[in-house]
């Protein structure tokens, strides 16, 4: 199963980026064999509005079946919800650590967005 992590780094030692919509890139990890690919978040880093929405679409299109993130705004959350993809809440830690937690079933799905909406 593929899982997406917003990151600033570029491999499993990278640390989770707390800003989902404006993360530099996403690490898409296949939990079955620990391989991963990198997905640049491109222009969304500077998008004037709707960065979270764009990033959510990118993650969904990558084939990921879950997102691991410390935060998720209301609009991105809605996109994930409609797409049926859980947002698993996690503390800021290395991806390797979080992957272990995921496999141990220690990450819980968020039931709603935790960031206030913003127009910016």
């Amino acid at each position: 199963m593929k899982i997406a992590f917003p990151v600033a780094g570029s491999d499993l030692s990278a640390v989770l980026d707390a800003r989902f919509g404006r993360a530099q890139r996403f690490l898409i990890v296949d939990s079955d064999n620990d391989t991963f690919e990198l997905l640049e978040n491109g222009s969304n880093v500077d998008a004037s509005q709707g960065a979270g929405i764009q990033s959510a679409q990118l993650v969904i299109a990558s084939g990921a079946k879950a997102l691991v993130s410390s935060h998720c705004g209301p609009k991105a959350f809605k996109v994930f919800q409609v797409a049926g993809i859980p947002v698993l809440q996690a503390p800021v830690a290395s991806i390797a650590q979080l992957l272990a937690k995921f496999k141990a079933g220690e990450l819980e799905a968020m039931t709603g967005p935790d960031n206030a909406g913003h127009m910016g």
Partner: protein
Amino acid sequence: MKIAVASGKGGTGKTTFSVALVLANRDRARIVDCDVEEPNAHLFLGGPEPVVETVRASIPVVDGDLCTACGACVDFCQYNALALAGSGGLLVFPELCHDCGGCIRICPNNALTEGPVSRGTIETKIIGGDLELVTGRLEVGSPSAPTVIRAAIARAPLLERETTILDAPPGTACSFAACMLAADHCLLVTDPTPFGLHDLALAIEAIREMSKPFSVVINRSLGPDDLASVFCRDQGYAVAMRIAESREIAQACSQGKTLLDAIPGIGQDLRDLLDAILETRATEVSG
């Protein structure tokens, strides 16, 4: 004839001035409050309960049977108001949509149609039997301030008046532009402080891009040699009026009095000001 009263920032006394301008000319002018995010002219003018109308705009509505999730509309929308949510299909975020209608036109499968959404209200009232006030009010969180401003300006007048005063929104962004584009002349209210000048210069730049005639009103003026007066003289900008700095005026205004109450004789000055603008306009049109 539409005259916009604007200032680059808040706190220059813009609304106080536009309210006084319309009060002094109530036999020939009406006022439209275009500061739709925080309309406040009604606070000075009072009057009866307004008639309220809803401003509607058209946002896309998806027909899930026709949509093939091709993504063309998502790529097109520069406001990120559309999203493909995997098997969930296309999502519309009305709070981000700017009602441009573009996605509806470009969808190759005709899966999008226009659906109405409320963006704000227009409140109209007649004060004292002869002064018409139209207030545009944006719905909280709506991105469509220009839509509401245009609707307020376009509202059919109840009273026949040759002049409409537009109390413009602050700043120089798209709300400001929507108001200015409708105006024939712009009065820029400033105060003679460095901040005031900085914002005045920005506002003038924006107005010149739209090729609109303008003149400057200096509020809290310290005389013909204050910062703003010197600036206008150097740049060759017309100063339409000066209102002297005075503690009594400030006090009266803070108690909710209008400039007409606070400054004896200003009513005539404000009538002369409108005469002057109407005259220049007449020569511009005939010349």
